[in-house]
């Protein structure tokens, strides 16, 4: 198709789709008037049934915990796929010492940059850990905490360079940790299935409301997700960071 034909086609069909979607959303209840009942029922029952103030966390890790299990494995599969696709050249350099690398910065890093990076890393770790652990109390949780913690990798990369990043985060142990994080979630589900007859049904005692680890399975799953997300995103960053090293382009097969 010529690019002009394609543009014409997408303009027409895009316009039609816009009208269709507008036509459809016009049938929704007015903005700001969510009719329920799903969320309202959960807002009512979850605080005392699950002893948890953050209902979003309760939905993510309990009421709709299977969605989150699937989501964790999406991350897991994607990270495996990225490693598969980008590892080609990694194999070659596996046993060689890391070659001097030019990365995003061609200029030498100053001490000021490194110091700033160190500070930022400390703040990020504190913030990420706080978010990750306080899933039941405040907004945030394993996912948010994990992504922000893994941001440390990005900071190390920018502040100290690829070599430091690759040295501080070894790929193989990380892969194992990631697999354990993902697998533990599935295993918790299977264990609760054996214990209670329902997959992911809470089988742990609940503490008093407002305590940090009082939420039974939610707390444990939150931890698994924190580990899996943090390790998964670190691996992802590592694979992409590796690409910034200078290499000869591969010859085309043609």
């Amino acid at each position, binding site marked *: 198709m010529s690019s002009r034909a394609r543009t014409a086609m997408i303009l027409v069909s895009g316009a039609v789709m816009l009208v269709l979607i507008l036509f459809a959303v016009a049938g929704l209840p007015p903005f700001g008037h969510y009719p329920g009942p799903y969320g309202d029922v959960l807002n009512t029952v979850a605080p005392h049934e699950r002893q948890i103030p953050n209902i979003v966390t309760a939905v993510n890790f309990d009421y709709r915990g299977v969605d989150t299990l699937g989501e964790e494995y999406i991350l897991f599969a994607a990270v495996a796929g990225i490693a598969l696709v980008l590892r080609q050249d990694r194999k070659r350099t596996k046993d060689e010492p890391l070659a001097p690398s030019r*990365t995003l910065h061609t200029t030498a890093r100053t001490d000021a940059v490194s110091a700033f990076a160190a500070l930022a890393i400390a703040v990020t770790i504190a913030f990420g850990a706080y978010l990750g652990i306080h899933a039941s109390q405040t*907004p945030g*949780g394993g996912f948010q905490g994990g*992504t922000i913690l893994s941001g440390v990798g990005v900071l190390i990369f920018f502040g100290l360079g690829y070599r430091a990043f690759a040295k501080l985060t070894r790929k193989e142990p990380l892969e194992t940790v990631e697999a354990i994080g993902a697998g533990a979630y599935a295993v918790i589900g299977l264990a609760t299935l054996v214990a209670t007859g329902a997959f992911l049904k809470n089988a742990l005692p609940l503490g008093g409301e407002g305590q940090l680890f009082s939420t039974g399975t939610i707390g444990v799953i939150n931890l698994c997700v924190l580990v899996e997300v943090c390790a998964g995103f670190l691996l992802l960053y590592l694979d992409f960071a590796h690409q910034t090293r200078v290499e000869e382009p591969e010859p085309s097969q043609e």
Partner: protein
Amino acid sequence: MTEQVVQGIALAMTAVVATVVVLAREPKRQIFCFMLYGLVLTLLFAALQAPDVALSELAVGSIAIPFAVLATLVRIENGRR
């Protein structure tokens, strides 16, 4: 009332910045627009009383994806040299 004003502004910015991201054809410029878009979405989600989502969008939209794209762009630049 202020709530709605904030939402209105965030929604308008969402529509505009999304369009800008799409129309920025040059990947390097586009990725900065995209980071801005991540921030706008974060603002919108916060305004819609979804702090959990806002935090995730901040982490993903302004760090994770831009980092992967930047690394890809650097790699492509290096490959050309």
